[in-house]
């Protein structure tokens, strides 16, 4: 839509299953704007919908958005992924886990049949989409073979499991460590039954009609900041990001496939 903006708008959406609460995006905007020589205006949203819509209308130029949001933004508005964030272990992906209580008699996935399972909520990628797809892949009919509910949060899933309200909880890795103060017995009382497929980490996505030149600038800028000692520290401390790697659209095909498996109808504009 609009050409040559004098300000770049950057949106940040923290992942609900990430490890950290995002405090302030200002320092990152500051650094980036020094790096690329264009003022950067930043904001944090609690959910990706606004950012994805903003990418579509041109109100937002690029954003740090979760993988599922990228797939949506891409199919709706032809937004393009440029980078994927790296986590603590230097990997560009994460996964979720199936937790059960120790001595619950559930040792294999087949044992889940007929049991009560807590997903997180129907719009959560790591808390519902991937775990449910995983079960489906193993031949489960979700409606008939298990008795599932939505807990409303990764933490609540764990809590329900500990309280004996459900037999299996699907949560991000590893929720028990993150909430070890709140649920100190979690590590002893529960064990991991298995993991889902890998899910790509948070993506850096630019709007579809951005000039190649500017896209390149932003990409370079972010990569430079991550290498920069000060910038790297900032990314780590504020956003829990340990670097970036360049990304291509096909890295996110796993999301598309999973969505398809779960009958989530993503409009396909390609």
């Amino acid at each position, binding site marked *: 839509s609009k050409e040559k903006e004098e300000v770049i708008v950057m*949106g940040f959406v*923290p992942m609900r299953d990430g490890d950290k*609460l995002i405090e302030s995006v200002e320092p990152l905007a500051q650094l980036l704007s020094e790096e690329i020589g264009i003022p950067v205006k930043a904001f944090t*949203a609690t959910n990706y919908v606004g950012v994805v819509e903003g990418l579509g209308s041109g*109100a937002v130029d690029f954003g740090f958005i979760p993988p599922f949001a990228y797939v949506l933004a891409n199919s709706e508005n032809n937004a393009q992924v440029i980078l994927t964030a790296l986590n603590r272990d230097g990997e560009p992906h994460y996964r979720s886990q199936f937790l059960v209580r120790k001595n619950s008699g559930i040792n294999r996935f087949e044992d889940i049949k007929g049991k009560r399972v807590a997903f997180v909520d129907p719009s959560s990628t790591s808390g519902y989409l991937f775990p449910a797809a995983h079960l489906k892949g193993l031949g489960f009919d979700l409606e008939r073979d298990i008795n599932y509910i939505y807990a409303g949060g990764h933490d609540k899933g764990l809590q329900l499991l500990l309280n004996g309200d459900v037999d299996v909880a699907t949560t991000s890795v590893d929720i028990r460590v993150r909430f070890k103060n709140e649920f100190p017995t979690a590590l002893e009382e529960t064990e991991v039954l298995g993991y889902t497929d890998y899910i790509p980490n948070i993506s850096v996505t630019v709007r579809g009609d951005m000039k190649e030149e500017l896209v390149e600038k932003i990409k370079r800028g972010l990569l430079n900041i991550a290498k920069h000692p000060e910038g790297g520290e900032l990314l780590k401390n504020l956003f829990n990001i340990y670097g970036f790697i360049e990304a291509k659209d096909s890295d996110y095909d796993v999301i598309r496939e999973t969505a398809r498996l779960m009958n989530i*109808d993503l409009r396909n504009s390609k």
Partner: protein
Amino acid sequence: MMNWYKRHIVKGKIQSLLTGTIIVILLIYSGYMVKWDFVKIYQGIPSMYNLIQRMFYPNFAYINEVMTKLLETLEIAFIASILGVFLAIPMGLLTAANTTPTKIFPVLLNPLFSLLRTIPNLIWAALLVSLFSIGIFPGIIALTITAFLVSLKLFREHIEGIEENSLNSLKAVGANSWQILGEGILPIIKEHLLAVFFIVLEINIRSATVLGLVGAGGIGQILWRDLNHLRYDNIATLLLILFITIGFIDLLSLVVRNYSKKIHINFNNLGRYIFFTRLARFSIPFLVLLSVIYIYSKIDLTFARFILGLEQGQTMILRMTRLDWSYLPQTLKGIKESLFITLFATIVGGINTLFLSYLAADNVSPSRGLAITTKFIINILRTFPPIITAVIFFRGVGPGPLAGAMALSLYTTGVLTKLYSEVVENTHGNIKDSILVVGGNNLHCYRHGIIPQTLPNYLSLLLYRLESNIRTSSILGVIGAGGIGSLLTQNITWRNWEKVGLLLLSMALLVMIIDRISYLIRKIFV
């Protein structure tokens, strides 16, 4: 004219001018703080329209799923509304300044309930899930709490608005508080009671997102899911059905209220009269009893599990009382962000309400057609969840508080007009008559009779909206304008109860300070 008289007239004019100026200044200042910008809004229209356009094609195939969820929600919402409203009646009596048995109750309980009202659904959900696990039962409890708090607020204000004389006539025969309630207040607020019930029912259906948080699913959950999948065709279907439902509830409310106004007719002997009045009285506890039985049947919990939940809830609350003062800077920043959005939305909504209520209220509207049209528009405004309007505006005007302020203004306009126009409709015909006879038109009746008479109700509704807007602002986090609300949401998700405690406390303080200020303003000007 005599001097003292002239002075007073001038003083009166200066006072109204001053009030007007203060409101305008507040509006302009908060408009400035939310970065109001006509050009930007105008330029954003194509983008906004583009999104609205995507809602032009509802996915009718989706109706089936929506209906199932809607019925599920309705069932829960209905029971919860009955309970909430019923509990609110005696509590309203205890806490209203003019009916309380001792002055201690209002002093102690009203701040407590204000505090409870500021507590967001997420916290209730966290508590309820701890206490009762997950499912329909905690779902009903969650909605009952909402229903109770909202209707309590509305009742209390209404009871306090009842003229002292009608209560005096009961006091004079030696009636106690409960009798004053039953014989003096209930008949007066009967229509209002029904109106409140339907309002609460509607709020419950719409705010049924809470249900998702306590695992009871419902329509809120699929709305949220569809929004997350950007399925605007599905959202359109949902909104359409919601709109029809709300319209239907409105109609039902109207019919029931009109019926209850006429119910006095046609008694020809004392026995029948006694029978029917007793039947009417007995039907209330009977209905409540039925609800309780229904709820009881939904409990799926062992006692040991409940005790466990009690402990968890206790730790949670205990941790909240250990305020994390290091979080104060962020808190203040959040407050600043929310405050202006909220203030702006409330003032804009408040002004709109005064005009729209005139058009919408049956008894003063210039024409019946206009009244129906206005009500229709109002219902559309109310049906659109602020979160969706916020996203629409965000597309147009980008990040910053503006989109949120616009979305919240529209919603406030809708809700407030609905509430106030009902107050207007319930005023006694006398007031209108007193102005009709001097050759006044409906606008005169409204402006000089009904507004002065219902000003206290209007102001308290306005304050009520201000309070809930501070809470509602949390959902604006979706577009990055959440302020203190989204801080709260995030910290609850992260179970940072110490921070949550501080945030809650500051929100409650904020509400109380605003309340206090407006009380003082009221004292000076009204």
